[in-house]
């Protein structure tokens, strides 16, 4: 390793240690009994399942919304685009509770709830509310990463594809998407992680009804509120382990794919000095 590389490992190790330290601090805080108790508790299991389901549903809709929108924004200029993009960034800044309050007001009885209810669609205080809240939080993350990714793709590929007669849809799906895949995926993972950990907006829109709209982060919050830090921490350890395993397995599954080596001739980086 070159000197620069050694320098670069300092922040890496530093932050890695902090993360490990935080996890260790959390683990030492709970007794094994508490941990075991939470793991096998049907409520924890329900919340875990509910979290996974809602976050997957939310990611599906966030992807359907964010990726096409990002594709459009990366490729078109129109008056007011900057304004529009900034507007779409706003949910990123919104404190989750406020996002939840806003969604509650928008989809609640006051504004659109009545109409939605007449269409047989109850969003507020229902599991769909959790999905909606998480979608709201995840979409801008997906959108922003995907937009940057699409904008970074060399347009020559698209032009080549066009002269070969591919349709715009084929160009999008078979050329630009794979070329932008790495950053798009990384955005999706970030968004997914956010939905898994999200509780403010979900809490407000869906409520915290046990065995109905309780996600793991809400379970954590409920336990913190009742002062049962141990159980709260165990619940969050369950959440983190599940997420960790999922992330690790997708990573390992993706590993041998040579798409990671899009542009390179060598398989590993040389060390300059």
């Amino acid at each position: 390793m070159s000197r620069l590389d050694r320098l670069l490992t300092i922040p890496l190790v530093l932050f890695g240690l902090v993360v490990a330290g935080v996890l260790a601090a959390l683990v030492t805080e709970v007794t094994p009994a508490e941990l075991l108790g939470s793991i096998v508790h049907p409520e924890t299991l329900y919340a875990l399942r509910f979290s996974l389901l809602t976050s997957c549903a939310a990611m599906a809709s966030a992807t359907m919304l964010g990726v096409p929108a990002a594709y459009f924004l990366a490729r078109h200029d129109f008056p007011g685009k900057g304004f529009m993009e900034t507007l779409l960034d706003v949910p990123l800044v919104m404190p989750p509770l406020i996002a939840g309050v806003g969604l509650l007001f928008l989809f609640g009885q006051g504004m659109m709830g009545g109409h939605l209810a007449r269409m047989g669609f109850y969003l507020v205080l229902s599991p769909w509310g959790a999905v909606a809240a998480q979608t709201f939080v995840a979409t801008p993350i997906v959108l922003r990463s995907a937009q940057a990714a699409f904008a970074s793709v060399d347009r020559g590929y698209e032009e080549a594809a066009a002269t070969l007669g591919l349709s715009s849809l084929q160009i999008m799906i078979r050329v630009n998407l794979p070329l932008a895949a790495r950053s798009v995926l990384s955005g999706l993972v970030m968004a997914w992680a956010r939905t898994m950990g999200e509780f403010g907006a979900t809490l407000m829109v869906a409520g915290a009804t046990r065995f109905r709209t309780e996600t793991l982060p809400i379970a954590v919050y409920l336990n913190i509120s009742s002062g049962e830090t141990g159980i709260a921490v165990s619940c969050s350890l369950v959440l983190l382990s599940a997420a960790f395993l999922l992330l690790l397995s997708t990573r390992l599954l993706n590993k041998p794919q040579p798409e990671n080596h899009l542009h390179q001739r060598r398989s590993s980086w040389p060390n300059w000095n």
Partner: protein
Amino acid sequence: AQDLFMYCGAGLRQPVDELLNTYFQQTGKKVNVEFGGSGQQITRFKATGQGDIFLPGSHFYVDQLKEMGQVTFSLPVVLHIPVVAVNKGSAEKVKTFADLAKPGIRVGLGDPKAMALGRTAEDILDNSGLREAVLKNTVVRTATVKQLTLYIVKGEVDAGIIARADGCQNQDKLVYFGVDPSWYKPDIVTAAVLKTSPQPEEARKLAEFLGSPASVEVFGKYGFLPVK
């Protein structure tokens, strides 16, 4: 001397702000107060080992600290009693507690673990004998009483069991009525002097100030009832 540091339930913010102002004017003693969820504050207190006085919305949390031996002195301040609050639009449909059991009424309740009033509500349900019927109408449980209040105000639910203080503060948007006092044990807002306090005398003075009749009167303005 040093400022005092107080943990205070977020629901008590308005009266406590007012009282601490008065206290500062009277004694020149500055109190740094941190509002928040009482459960969270216990966690923080355990981790930091700092603080002079704790004023949660329910004696339940003081009891937790007492069990851990962290409390040197405690004093009940005011009562936190439950009421049934009804959205103005549904006021015709819900006039008594029994109406909560009527089919088609949407009821919201607090989470029995996370929220003091959630536990109280459980007692009420048990003692009223309408538990099953009301639970069938219950569409949501909430993590905080403010969340539940918001749902009632916004009409997401028709009615719910909230604190009198919250009902009182939202009189313009909802109506409320009391519940048979024999069905529940009221929560008591309790001031506790913490063992970690470096100036326990000053802390105790503050606790006594908070429990004084003048203070209780201020609490009363915000819908809290005095401890008998």
